[in-house]
């Protein structure tokens, strides 16, 4: 019997105006999304490769002398991801430029300017279409599931059969989910068909798997709204009332609540300011320089002539390394505070299922805040690798002092780091590693669990509500 209910629901939905309109709207949006993404992605990849190659050729020039490789500040750009079509998040505005050399990694900054005169919308990606349009469509399909059938008189006919009420509920749920999955899958297919032929977009096996997981998560998100619609429709007798309530709930949770939570968070929380950071940097640097004797005799002074008796190279190196260590530590702390604040703001907005869904998509797609933070870690790691390389190559040179310190004069006039040329191919170059499917899932597992919990809660509530529904 349940199979017949499912079949009837699907056919009834497919033949209605609602389905035609939703399919039309979602197809248009997915197609536009795919096309816009393809164009932007091409441009971004071109830009990215040009800038990265500029950086590498500049590095090659420096590799004629080893210590210059150590001091050259490389500019690393964030690579555009193909999965940004699914969940670009706010990537346009997130930091995309990292400066690193052997000794320090600067804080990430955002290069490239957005038009400040335009309203700031998130870009149209799959996440937006599914979280806004398809969730709305879910409500439109289910708002009159029970009360509409009650008004038409067919609900009591259905329940006159020997069918338990929960099977009716399950049947309607399954029927609506399949009806919703159709425009979603067709839309995604259209999007993928548009972007795959483009040469710049390369989707490998891991990413196909991620797309599959995203489809499942999207279905989980949509089922929240389907169950919500079923619940509200089983509470009222008139479909108009049910629609009014559902619209209100939808507007609140998807549109108003995220903004409201962000505002409340902004108003109540303090941001770590730039002046504070500069002040702390200056303080700690002054503290070290004032106590320079701690690192050895004459650590605080230096003359370019190595044989000058005033010079104490090991002590100077220790001093400079202490300065750069404390700088790095302060920068890391500042960065952590930034990250904490951004994540806390997003977590606070997770009262809305749309934000939970967006967070999951970003975690699985490997985009968004987590990715930028991960990239920062990778860049720091690369700095350390570069330092190891410099140290090991420097050891081969008998003429250098083997003192790796951040002072340029020391390296240049004292030969603290070797002046020999180095083979450019052996210099480690930065390669961005995208997250594997396993890592993405680990990040997203809590959110998926949360979505499932909401689903179960709504199902239970809809179940109890329908059990007590007066079907006459």
């Amino acid at each position: 019997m349940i199979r017949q209910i499912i079949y009837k629901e699907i056919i009834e939905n497919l033949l209605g105006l609602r389905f035609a309109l939703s399919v039309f709207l979602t197809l248009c949006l997915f197609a536009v999304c795919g096309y816009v993404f393809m164009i932007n992605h091409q441009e971004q990849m071109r830009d990215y490769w040009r800038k990265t190659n500029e950086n590498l050729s500049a590095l090659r020039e420096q590799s004629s002398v080893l210590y210059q490789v150590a001091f050259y500040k490389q500019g690393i750009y964030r690579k555009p991801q193909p999965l940004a079509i699914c969940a670009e998040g706010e990537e346009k505005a997130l930091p995309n430029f990292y400066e690193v050399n052997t000794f320090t990694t600067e804080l990430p900054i955002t290069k490239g300017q957005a038009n400040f005169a335009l309203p700031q919308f998130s870009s149209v990606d799959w996440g937006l279409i599914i979280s806004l349009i398809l969730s709305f469509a879910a409500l439109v399909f289910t708002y009159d599931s029970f009360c509409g059938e009650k008004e038409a008189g067919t609900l009591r006919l259905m329940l006159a059969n020997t069918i338990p009420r929960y099977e009716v509920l399950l049947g309607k749920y399954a029927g609506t989910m399949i009806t919703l999955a159709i425009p979603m899958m067709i839309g995604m297919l259209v999007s993928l068909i548009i972007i795959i032929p483009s040469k710049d977009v390369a989707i490998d096996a891991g990413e196909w798997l991620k797309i599959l997981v995203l489809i499942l998560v999207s279905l989980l998100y949509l089922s929240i709204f389907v169950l919500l619609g079923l619940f509200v429709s089983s509470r009222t007798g008139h479909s108009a009332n049910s629609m009014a309530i559902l619209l209100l709930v939808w507007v609140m949770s998807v549109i108003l609540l995220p903004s409201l939570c962000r505002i409340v968070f902004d108003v109540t929380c303090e941001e770590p300011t730039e002046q504070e950071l500069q002040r702390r940097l200056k303080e700690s640097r002054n503290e070290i320089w004032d106590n320079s004797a701690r690192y050895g005799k004459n650590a605080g002074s230096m003359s370019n002539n190595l044989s000058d008796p005033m010079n104490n190279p090991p002590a100077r190196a220790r001093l400079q390394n202490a300065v750069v260590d404390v700088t790095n530590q302060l920068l890391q702390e500042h960065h952590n505070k930034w990250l904490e604040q951004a994540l806390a703001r997003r977590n606070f907005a997770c009262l809305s299922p749309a934000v939970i869904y967006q967070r999951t998509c970003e975690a699985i797609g490997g985009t968004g805040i987590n990715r930028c933070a991960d990239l920062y870690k990778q860049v720091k790691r690369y700095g350390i690798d570069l330092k190891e390389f410099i140290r090991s190559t420097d050891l081969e040179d008998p003429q250098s002092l083997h003192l790796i310190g951040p002072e340029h004069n020391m390296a240049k006039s004292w030969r603290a780091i070797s002046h020999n040329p180095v083979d450019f191919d052996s210099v480690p170059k930065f390669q961005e590693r995208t997250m594997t499917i396993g890592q993405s899932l680990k990040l997203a597992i809590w959110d998926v669990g949360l979505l499932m919990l909401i689903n179960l809660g709504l199902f239970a509530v809809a179940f109890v509500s329908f059990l007590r529904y007066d079907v006459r």
Partner: protein
Amino acid sequence: MIWKIAKKEFLLNLMTFKFAVGAIACVLLTVVFMPILAADYRQRLKMYNKNVVDNETELRNVIVYRNVKHTIYRPPVVLSAFSAGLEKQLAGSAKIELEKVPELSVTERGGNPYLPILAVFDESLIFKIIISILALLVAYDVVSGEREQGTLRLMLSDPIARHQVLLGKLVAGLITLSVPVAITFVIGLVVILSYPMVALSGSDWIRIGLMFIASLAFTVVMFQFGLLFSCLAKRSSISMVLGLFIWIVFAIVIPNASVQLATQFRPFESQETQNGRMASLKEDLSNELRTEMDNVKELFSKSIITSDKRDAFGGYYAKRRDIYWLNAEQKLNNLTIPIKLKYADKFWDVEHRYLNGFFRQKHLAHRLALISPISTYENAMAVLAGTDLAGFQDFINQVREHRNEVVEYIRSKTDDFSSASFFAICTEKESTEFTRLYVQKQEAKDEQAKAKAEQALKEWERANPAKAAPLNLQDFPWFKYRQSFARDIRAAVPDLATLLVMNVILFAIYFTAFGRYDVR
């Protein structure tokens, strides 16, 4: 007869569940939003007052004309609680200096790059979303619902023209929806006026009145869309689905799409090209300055001594200086300041052209979004509140005029930048005397002569102390921000006209549709 129908519809609407839900939602949201918005406005007003006072005090402490580098602040608009526009995104201040022409810029966000998107919300969000949905919900079953119930044919069995029925329903819808709109406005005003520092002037009240009319016009447009679908569909559920579909298109698809399309069709130049242009201009400027410096290098070679002190706005002034240095710097200023002024205009030209790219994009996005009444309404509200782009451009134009006035003022007071009062407090006479005594001290042959010369110098200094008095700013062209009321009203007219035209077109369409409607 129209009034009878209208009254009946109105009373029926008031007693429906959906209207109650919508009205209560409006009231609750206003009560929740307005205090937050008002508190935010109060904070911004406090900051503004403090900044203005600080600036004025510092300006009154300036000692030489070179250091007149104050900042002009834009007062926060009280109606930004109703429509935020670009208030949060654009910086409300501009610095006045000789080397740079002020231009619009973005607010500094304290630097956390992981928090890029500002959460912008205001009272008009309630209108755009809640009240427009309420309008659709009230309107979707006005005709088709009555047909399903059977009362439409009863009503039309009377000797009543169809257009009278329609007009009655339209009037009823208008009155019904004006209730939540009015309540929202009134509660919003009450909340914001309960804060003591908020003062609304006469022109503010006229603006609020016009915003109320715009909100009503917008609500009636959405109501008429619902009515149109009701007249086209045989069943209410179809009309509702059509109404919701149109709402999604207007509220989400069109605003987003217009922005995306505008960025595609009118891309602006990359920042690198812009940086390149600015860098080459800077090089030209430094080249020209260098040639002038070479001209006066000889004069500077004779300079002996100067003692400088700190002035307001982070600048310096020369307290005591020898006559050669004084003359040299006077000549240098006379030659270089006009060049700097010329280049300031050139820099501004380049920057302005770059920003024009942004503005063209915005205008295109605005025009594309005119199809959606929600976007039109949002823009009308921003214009009426004074927080739209044109308002900011008006402010920055006034700041630029002020800068020109300040430059002319300084030019007239310092004799085309060549007077010593531009950068020093010592007069030429004092400087000559100081130089003579100092040179005497330097060239003293023995200890006795040196001591005598030093004594003479000290005595002279005691007799002529350095008078570091602040400038006399009696005829200074102080900045007064004039918010142009007429300009805002004129700018809002196209959007209001669009809403009215939409109203008329919709009325025409459903009028003909209802004329052919099968009421059985």
